[in-house]
């Protein structure tokens, strides 16, 4: 009886998920295979002839290889920001959890403020201009780091609470400097939550559209999400190219996901959820 019900439930779940999730994906993929005239119809149909390769070549070479530049920019942006966020927020989470001082309340308040308050865009632009960082890739890296820190710190602090203090004390008695205690003992133990953090933050930063729009204007500086926008206005009628572009820029997050798929839930179990 229960077995039969399970089969029914599985069948229903698979059909519903196929309709709700797979159909939109296959729409994107099918559109990427079509030629211009057929894509124009915007319908859910089998492509007449395989035009994927010509579409890819055209998308990549358009506007002087802009997509390639954008891919390089986005990769640098994502890798640099995520690396800095992981190291800096783990350091803060570690000291914040271990050392109780009268400033902890204030620090926690400021972190929560960062989660809740929307970033003040215009003063940030003035500030970046003053520092000579406006419209520069490393300026945007620092902005993304600043905006990702609060969530990341909370994640780490919750996880570090589960690592026994005895470990630090043993290392200190053995003569480790504070620097070594953190980077050689604690940081490796944080791996599960680091994976979760890397996946969540890198997907968010790679797919970020708003911050590059505000802080990184100019074609030479385009990130992949902005190329999508340029394509949409430039090829207002070439939907095949637009969807080829969407499919292409989904590949890097997909690789990250396939890489860390099994470990995402583990980090969530240990860290975020017990916060």
């Amino acid at each position, binding site marked *: 009886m229960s077995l039969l019900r399970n089969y029914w439930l599985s069948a229903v779940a*698979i059909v519903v998920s196929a309709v709700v999730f797979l159909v939109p994906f296959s729409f994107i993929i099918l559109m990427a295979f079509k030629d211009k005239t057929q894509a124009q119809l915007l319908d859910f149909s089998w492509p007449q002839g395989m035009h994927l390769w010509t579409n890819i070549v055209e998308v990549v070479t358009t506007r002087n290889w802009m997509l390639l530049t954008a891919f390089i920019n986005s990769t640098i942006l994502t890798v640099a920001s995520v690396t800095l966020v992981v190291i800096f927020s783990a*350091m803060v989470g570690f*000291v914040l959890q271990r050392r109780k001082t009268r400033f902890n309340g204030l620090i926690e308040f400021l972190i929560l403020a960062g989660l809740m308050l929307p970033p003040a865009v215009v003063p940030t632009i003035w500030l970046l201009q003053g520092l000579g960082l406006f419209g520069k890739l490393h300026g945007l890296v*620092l902005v993304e780091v600043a905006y990702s820190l609060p969530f990341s710190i909370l994640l780490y602090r919750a996880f570090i609470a589960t690592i026994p203090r005895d470990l630090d004390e043993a290392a200190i008695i053995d003569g480790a400097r*504070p620097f070594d205690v953190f980077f050689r003992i604690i940081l490796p133990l944080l791996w599960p939550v680091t994976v979760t953090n890397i996946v969540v933050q890198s997907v968010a930063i790679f*797919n970020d559209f708003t911050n590059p729009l505000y802080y990184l204007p100019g074609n030479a500086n385009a990130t992949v999400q902005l190329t999508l926008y340029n394509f949409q206005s430039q090829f207002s009628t070439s939907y095949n190219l637009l969807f080829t572009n969407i499919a292409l820029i989904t590949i890097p997050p997909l690789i990250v*996901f396939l890489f860390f798929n099994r470990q995402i839930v583990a980090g969530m179990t240990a860290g975020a*959820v017990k916060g």
Partner: protein
Amino acid sequence: MAVMTETAAAAPMAPTPKRRSPYPGWFFLPAAIIYGVLFLLPTFASLYFSLTRWTLFNSTFIGLDNFAQFLREPFLVKGLINTVLYAVITSGLKVVLGLMLAVLLTSQIAARGYLRSVVFFPVLVSTVGVGITFTILMHPTQGMINEALAMIGIKGPGWLVNPSLALFSVALVDVWKGVGLATVIYIAGIVAIPKDYYEAARIDGSTKFQSFLYVTLPLCRPATVTVILLSFIGGLRTFDLIWAMTRGGPGFASDTIASVIYKQYQAGFMASAPPATWCCSS
């Protein structure tokens, strides 16, 4: 006690008062500098600008004109209501659907790996890309959704062109895209519940539904808090999806604070954006 320094208080184990704390304060420094300069400073600056409205009422402060102009914008209130509505709808649906999916995916069901990957996949796709795709799928006459509905004899609504429906359509797409993350957080929460509780409940004669209601639900409260926190904050700040799908339209029906700010910014009212930011956050 009176001479006990902050460092010594932090390391009561230290054998000599001269010994450095194993948890050095400079660990805060890199994060504090970046966060302080690029987030806190601009935020306080914008707070200052918005406060000058009340304290410098008769002054010739330039920001005043911009601020007044912004408040006279009748769509600001609309944008504020839309933003809150959007955040409530998306986070509510993500909690309910995410929990349901997580319970389903942790039960003895076939093809769990496939289902989990499929549900999580939209999280990875670019938000703007999802927005463009669904704008086409939700087209009132040629869109696939309405064509499918027409096939079973239902006349589909004008998802994005109907002013009273546009915001909800965008919110639905947001849920479609974000429910995967909520599901993963809930799966983690449910997996962490010890099996003993379910066993004890079963011995006491509880049905499956009762076990869910009295064991699963209370014990994954931390997961619920995380999901609500993340999706509510994300909902309040939403911009990408709305901009890609409706640009705040039709008319101003689906404008949120973020899109109003961007429109103002585009139009060149640089100084009016900080007050707007503060209106929506306080």
